[in-house]
């Protein structure tokens, strides 16, 4: 089995000119190999094309140039089987209960009722949502709703999970706890995870490797091995090497963030 789970080769994305606005070169060209089973974090300045990168890997957007493959098959502007995405925005379905939200994808895929029941119950148990199975999303906090969305992704048993700043709207403590849950999910599922985030500490804590992107058009200026053990949680934030890692990420990003804000290097 190939160690490369998804591969980007010379990928760039240009949004064509529209309504009196010039074309926007959002991404690349860039190359990236996502290794099977790794946790890959992506950080970069605002507007550098992080979410565009996720869209291209997921098949939600086709690259303007270059190739994307997932499990050695081309991703051609369509989401392949085996990829799950969790978005930053609340994507829970307000008209369905938590249980029905999580069951939605399985039912649409025509799975047997008994299998749906088993897998949904398992996903709810894993995400700590059993007591809220009959609740509607409006009755839950932002963090709980995001858990519902993660459970809805998890239940489909994706082999590659893409997360687009899923904890962006949450407070710092909840983000740390959600990070722990995400690590637990990653270890239990064996899936490859790519996390887009603007939080350097989050990327440093969760990732096996962190890709640091330049200002737009986003390219990888460095990819850093964090060296963490697979069994880890948010307590590594207390280790001295965590501070050094976060400082290194910031030193790489500072100039790019200034560029993104339109400032020159002081």
């Amino acid at each position, binding site marked *: 089995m190939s160690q490369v789970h998804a591969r980007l080769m010379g990928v760039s994305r240009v949004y064509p000119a529209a309504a009196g606005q010039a074309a926007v070169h959002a991404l690349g060209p860039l190359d990236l190999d996502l290794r099977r089973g790794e946790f890959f974090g992506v950080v970069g300045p605002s507007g550098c094309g992080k979410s565009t990168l996720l869209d291209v890997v997921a098949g*939600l957007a086709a690259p303007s140039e270059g190739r994307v493959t997932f499990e050695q098959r081309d991703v051609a502007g369509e*989401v392949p089987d085996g990829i799950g995405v969790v978005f930053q*925005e609340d*994507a829970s379905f*307000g008209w369905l209960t938590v249980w029905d939200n999580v069951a939605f994808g399985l039912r*649409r895929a025509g799975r047997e009722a008994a299998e749906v029941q088993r897998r949904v119950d398992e996903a709810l148990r894993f995400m700590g949502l059993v007591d809220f199975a009959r609740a509607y999303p*409006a*009755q839950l906090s932002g963090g709980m709703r995001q858990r519902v969305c993660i459970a809805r992704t998890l239940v*489909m048993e994706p082999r590659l999970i893409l997360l687009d700043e899923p904890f962006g709207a949450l407070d710092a403590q909840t983000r740390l706890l959600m990070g722990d849950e995400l690590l637990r999910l990653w270890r239990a599922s064996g899936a490859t995870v790519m996390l887009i985030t603007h939080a350097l500490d989050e990327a440093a804590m969760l990732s096996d490797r962190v890709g640091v992107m330049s200002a737009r058009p986003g390219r990888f200026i460095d990819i850093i091995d964090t060296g963490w053990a697979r069994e880890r949680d948010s307590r590594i934030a207390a280790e001295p090497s965590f501070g050094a890692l976060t400082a290194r990420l910031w030193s790489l990003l500072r100039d790019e963030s200034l560029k993104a804000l339109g400032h020159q290097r002081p």
Partner: protein
Amino acid sequence: MKRRALDMLLVSVALVVLWQALHWRVGEEGLASPAATLRQIGEELESPRFWRHVAETAIAFGWALLYSAGGGLVLGLWFGFRRLAGEVAEPVLTAFASLPKVTLYPIMLLVFGLGLPAKVAFGAIHGIVPVVLFSMAAVRNLAPVLTRTARVLRLDARTTALTVLLPAALPEIVSGLRIGFSLTLLGVLIGEMFAAKRGLGFLIMNAIGLNDSGTIMTVATLLFAFAALANAALLALDRHLHHRGD
């Protein structure tokens, strides 16, 4: 729930008291009393002639509602998904909504003639605009992340529309249908008042000519009860859809 029922009861009692007070002020000729109206309601409900008028109005209202709700929904969804068409149509529809439709009734009579088609058309043009505007807004306000989620779940266009977009837009659509329902009934009754030989609107107009305040209040009370019950049912559905889980 109990509090709401109690509030409604208090409002109803206050209305009846006000009605009785007005009756004492203007006399039987000007305004029939609540008790006399109640008696006449009992008599009318046993009269086949009255039910023929009710049937006439019900048929006209049924057809008008079908056109205003069905047509409004189709047009609203179309304008919602076709952004340019919606942007062109919206100011025209808003202007049309503020136009007193009764100014168009002579034209409707010339086009459709006296009888059922004119009443149906007049009811439909009253009700269709809010249904179109609310349905259009419902589609426009759909969060893009819902469509993206549907793509990640590999749903086809039809399944996406039926299982994701329609349920998400439904609360706004029902709000439009609720307002469209009331305005359609209003249009049909106005149509019957101006140019009809049968129907509840005609009955009211005829009673005005005969200075028969008993019949006016009887028909008005029955229409009020019907509209209030239907509106309460639609409002309950509307609230349920807007506040699922609140």
